């Protein structure tokens, strides 16, 4: 495909809008940190900050009184806490997917969204990690989950999926940060070289470690970047598989399901792309110049990925139902019947609507190119994925093996406050990121431009024929 484009035989939908030069790319993106930010930014940041304070308050109450302030009970030992954990971590996955897997797959269109998506990943994982940390009865001894010698002389119990979570999530977070930061280094150098104020120069200078664009450095940079990408790919798959094992390892009907790992990963990517869209569309409005780099083609591609993963997820639901009835296991059968027609039936059918029915609209090009429609769909999908976790966590637990132990679950004000709070935190961080960090990977964009059009100046459109053959993958093409 790419060769064809370069050969000029196929006209690929533009990954850039309008005339670009290396200079322009740098200026457009690199100057954002130095420009006056739009009023919309202030509003959104304010909202996010309010949410964050709410979160802090909710957590204080939690530490003061105990998890009793939440709706959890026997038999439903996990409620909003774990639902939100899975929801957030799922959202995070899109970032890594875009930056790593699409890189390996040489998807040129990833260039303009990967930095953004990676940032989203990091903040989403922060929100996610919060929940398992505070959902315990005694958060102040959470460190017992880490393999460090303690006064009890006992080690963690490595057979527990929760222990795997500790390793998976922390590793995932670390690697995501490294990956993200590494990609940032050259761009921070660019910022440094443009910075007017001394302070900005110093800060960006320190953060860019004195990067000087040396060809040899670039070479090592790329092999390291590529290796990180190669590692992140199995990592991102493993992380959500491990999360799914939190349930699959148990014996609870509705949890003990063999298809969970793939079906969770698909769900994660699904919700992740939904979240990217939810963010990108407003950002394009807030920062109009981003439209030159995040074109309708990008949005179209993301919508397609959503559609694909959405179909996988929907297949997962159908399989669950099928297993339930086909297994001839009384517990499984009751579990699925209870999901569909039990006290929580509305949740299940809402889930089917959000994740099964609505995404079908994405089959239509018109829908994929209608921003507002797409925005609403992505919101619905986010809701749907949350409902999916609710069905899995709560509806499976509230009626399991022993009828005498059955019960109902309802969230309290504090459950909601904590959840809303994390959303606020997420928004706040995203807008801080947009404000102070180059939102798009400039170097990679220039590289892409060079790949596609082979020169730094002028006449857009017709590709240069004798551009060097694309064997290098660091830039992505």
């Amino acid at each position, binding site marked *: 495909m790419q060769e064809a484009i370069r050969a000029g035989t196929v006209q690929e939908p533009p990954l850039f809008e309008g005339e670009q030069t290396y200079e322009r790319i740098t200026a457009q993106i690199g100057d954002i940190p130095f420009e006056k930010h739009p009023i919309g930014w202030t509003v959104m940041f304010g909202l996010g900050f309010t949410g964050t304070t709410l979160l802090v308050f909710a957590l204080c109450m939690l530490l003061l009184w105990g998890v009793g302030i939440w709706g959890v009970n026997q038999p439903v030992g996990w409620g909003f806490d774990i639902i939100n954990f899975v929801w957030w971590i799922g959202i995070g996955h899109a970032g890594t997917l875009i930056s790593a897997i699409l890189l390996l797959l040489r998807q040129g269109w990833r260039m303009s969204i990967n930095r953004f998506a990676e940032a989203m990943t990091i903040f989403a994982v922060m929100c996610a990690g919060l929940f398992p940390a505070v959902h315990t*009865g005694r958060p102040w001894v959470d460190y017992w989950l880490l393999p460090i010698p303690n006064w009890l002389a006992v080690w*963690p119990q490595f057979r527990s999926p929760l*222990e795997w979570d500790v390793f998976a999530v922390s590793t995932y977070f670390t690697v995501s940060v490294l990956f993200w930061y590494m990609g940032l280094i050259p761009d921070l150098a660019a910022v440094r070289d443009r910075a007017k104020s001394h302070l900005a120069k110093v800060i960006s200078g320190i953060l860019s470690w004195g990067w000087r664009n040396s060809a040899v450095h670039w070479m090592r940079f790329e092999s390291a970047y590529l290796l990180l990408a190669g590692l992140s790919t199995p990592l991102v798959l493993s992380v959500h598989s491990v999360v799914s094992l939190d349930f699959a390892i*148990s014996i609870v009907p509705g949890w003990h399901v063999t298809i969970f790992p793939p079906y969770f990963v698909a769900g994660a990517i699904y919700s992740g792309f939904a979240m990217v869209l939810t963010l990108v569309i407003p950002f394009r409005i807030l920062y109009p110049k981003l439209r030159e780099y995040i074109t309708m083609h990008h949005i179209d591609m993301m919508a397609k990925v959503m559609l694909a993963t959405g179909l996988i997820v929907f297949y997962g639901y159908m399989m669950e139902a099928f297993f339930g009835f086909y297994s001839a296991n009384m517990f499984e059968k009751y579990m699925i019947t209870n999901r569909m027609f039990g006290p929580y039936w509305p949740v299940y059918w809402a889930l089917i609507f959000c994740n099964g029915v609505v995404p079908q609209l994405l089959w239509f090009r018109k829908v994929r190119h209608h921003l507002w429609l797409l925005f609403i769909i992505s919101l619905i999908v986010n809701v749907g994925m949350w409902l999916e976790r609710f069905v899995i966590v709560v509806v499976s637990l509230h009626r399991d*093996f022993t*009828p005498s132990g059955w019960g109902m679950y309802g969230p309290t004000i504090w459950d909601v406050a904590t959840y809303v709070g994390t959303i606020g935190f997420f928004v706040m961080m995203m807008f801080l990121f947009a404000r102070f960090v180059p939102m798009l990977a400039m170097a990679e964009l220039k590289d892409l431009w060079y790949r596609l059009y082979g020169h730094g100046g002028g006449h857009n459109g017709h590709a240069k024929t004798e551009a060097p053959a694309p064997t290098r993958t660091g830039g992505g093409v």
Partner: protein
Amino acid sequence: MEKRDNERLWRSLNERENAPQLKEQLQREFAPEAAPHSNLVSRRQFLKLMGASMALAGLSACGYKPQGPIIARAKIPEEAPGESLYYATAVTLGGYAKGVLARVYEGRPIKLEGNELHPASLGSTDAFTQAEILNLYDPDRSQSLLKFGQIQTWQAFTGELMQQLTLQQAKKGSGIRLLTEVITSPSLAAQIQTFLKTYPQAKWYQWEAINRDHVYEGTRLAFGEWLNPIYRVRQAKVILALDSDFLFLGPAAVRYAREFADGRRVRENQHQMNRLYVAEPMPTVTGFTADHRLPIHSSRIGLLAAAIAQAVGAPLQVTMQGELTPEERRWAEVVARDLIAHKGESLIIVGEAQPPAVHAIAHAINAALGNLGKTVVFTAPPEAEPTLCTEDIRTLAKEIAEGQVEVLIMLGTNPAYDALADLNFAELIPKVPFSVHLSRYTDETSALCVWHVPESHPFETWGDARAFDGTVTIQQPLIFPLYPNTRSALELMAQINGQGGKQAFDLVQGYWKTASLAPAAQFDALWRQSVHDGVIPRTALPIKSVRLRPNLAVELPPVEAQGLEIRFAPDPTMYDGRFANNTWLQELPKPVSRICWDNVAFMSLKTAQELGVVGTEKVALVHDSAPLVQIRVNGRTLIAAAYPIPGHVDNAITLHLGYGRTRAGSNGSGTGFNAYTLRISDAMWFTHNAEVVTTGQRYTIARTEEHHLIEHGELDSLHHRPIMLIGTLQEFQQDPHLKKHRHGESGELPSMYKGFQYDRYQNPNNYRYAWAMVIDPTVCTGCSACVTACQAENNIPVVGKQEVVRQREMFWLRIDRYFKGPVENPRTYQLPVPCMQCENAPCELVCPVAATVHSEEGLNQMVYNRCVGTRYCSNNCPYKVRRFNYYRYAYYKQPVLHLLQNPDVTVRGRGVMEKCTYCVQRINRARIQAKKENRRIRDGEIIPACQQACPTKAIVFGDLNDPDSEVSRLRREPHLFSMLEELNTRPRTTYLAKLENPNPELHTEAHNAGSH
């Protein structure tokens, strides 16, 4: 001493100042809308204040050692630090003694066990007895004399009292009335008699809201005198209980339950099984246990009895109105045939709620069947002064109204609350110029009296009491009175009789010296033995030979065919309301309904729908709120929550007495609805033509088990799950393994792991135990004694109504209840569910911090101080037996409650998971003992709290690696069954099949349904 009194006085006043604001915080605590933490706030503050005052008022002052020579069970020297001593004594309910062994740890009683030497206990207890220990330490107990609510000194009180009495001396005490509970205590009775000698015109009345008047009247009708029937349940092959909960309530319930169970234990080589028929309006423990249960109005029981009497040819005429329905008639005939087939080994028992005539009919039937002297014998009433409580209270009310009563001395009763509504006792008491009330709480009656005298707890002083068969127990004190101003009834009477100087010990022993039990020479030996054993030998009343009166004729009260029937019954946990402030009993799920902290208006689902209080929607009862209805009967009204329960007879409402108290204490006040307000002397137990009006409001109800089953038109909460193995005796005889009822793969499943080997010897000279438990649901009646015993033994906190509503109750042991068959009259199956101690424990695998691991003896151990509280273990427990401290439940600021706690068991903090441990502290005690004596732990040496309390001995614990242990033998029984076997958790707690012995002639669908 005087100085101390002053100090106390001040400190108590200090406490009194806090009182109002405490009350107000209390209301907030129980307000349904209160946020959970906010109600904790109020609880905390409440505890702080109470605690402070408590610390000063009582404990700091005195050591624990009681006065008088008390005698422990063990040989070891008393006062052994760290060692517990067991003392025999008794607790009384309705006047009747139940023998107990109190475990006293370093001077403080912490647990009650049954006294195997006592006829009413046989080593077991009921829930009331288990909870009695909490009554002792109840922080709300009254501590000081009050005159019109103002604190006074003893000097002031005795002064005024004596002055009043001297005034009365002139008229031989014609103005003095004595109102007591039913009294069996010989020494107290003697004191009262002395008093009555001094004041010949004075009168002594007794009142129990739950009394046995009808039983005595019944015997008078049948035999011409008041007699005390004693049933030999063990000898009975066929038992018919008419509106009688004899397995659960009554002075001999524990013994009857044991005897009943003994006639019912089916083993591979023991196929004998008695058969129980029960006819009753509202399901009871006995009804749930029955092989055949007939829902029928209390007012129609008489007709049923008469029909059976006729069928067995009982020698009496019955004049009656009303007709049995065809089904009832058929039932009666079948039962009658079965009874006739078992002449001499059958038994008819009638409940105290039934009118005397029905009792008489039952006696006649027993006579006709030749059961007299075999399965039922008679003695004289064990009360010191047998009387008809209803008559007494009525006369007293009349006399007060007529102004004849000038001095009213009340010992321990609470008529202002539980007297019959039409007597308006609450308005009468203030009419008495000089009223004295001795009671453990400043309750409804105290509030109306001139003087309130704080009563000491039986465990604080000497006393004596008779059991249902007259056997006397000397109650020895276990602890020095917690509060210096309290007196027992005996001490008070002695003081009135001018023996104020005497110690309670001298009073009691003095009485028995004169009672000429034995020649003076041997008295001391006899005394020592009696106190040590907890029973005075040869004090059981002699069996009387009785003859039915010739040409006996009885008349049944007329039966209103139509009209809603209201049935009053003692509450399964509050009894008549005296336990209202006992949080253990408040939170204990009621044996039948699984409701706690409230009583409700029980009715059948059909009736509820007819009255429009329950919608016809399928999931009517999933919600935790029930509709409030107004019940109007005999011109009185009561607002109560309507609550449908399976198996209740249609067109009737059952109200449990004992709730709706206003001055029970911080925990009891304001819970439930006061059914006494509808209870009048003409209709003490049931009445008719009630109207029910819906109010449109709803009331939150705390239940530990949902009726979600009602979603399915037919009750079948087992959902064909392998939770119980159920079969009939017949099926067992054909195939002891009951194969056709088992399903799911059983036995070993292939595993990729070798797994842990629990063999007898790690190395040859080091024997390894393998603890296990077998439970026999066939004999379990669901009486819940084990639950309270577990709570007492393991320091299990009470969480309060709000938390129970949020499904956070903490019981380590629960009793599951499953229905099967039609909602009108389902079969009921119950089984106690402790931790299964799975060998392949799902909970352990998922704990990230190894806070729950397996001991090499097979115990699934919970390491509290390692637990982080992820709750994953609970999620992954298929039996849902794990409990989590969502808040800091076990947080008692009151030092007096600290005295209660078992030093062998950790008190769990906030955020920690907990569960049944097989009473590991008892295992370790035995292990230490065995090590000391350099031997193995003997079979039966370790008895977990639940097993020890169980009246029917349905629970057996022991060592699997010892092939001769009882538990091993039971594990070899063919009808052994492990819950959810197919999950291959390999539980150490296993069950025998629940066997029923249905009469083929009545063999219903339900029984067939019973089999899967």
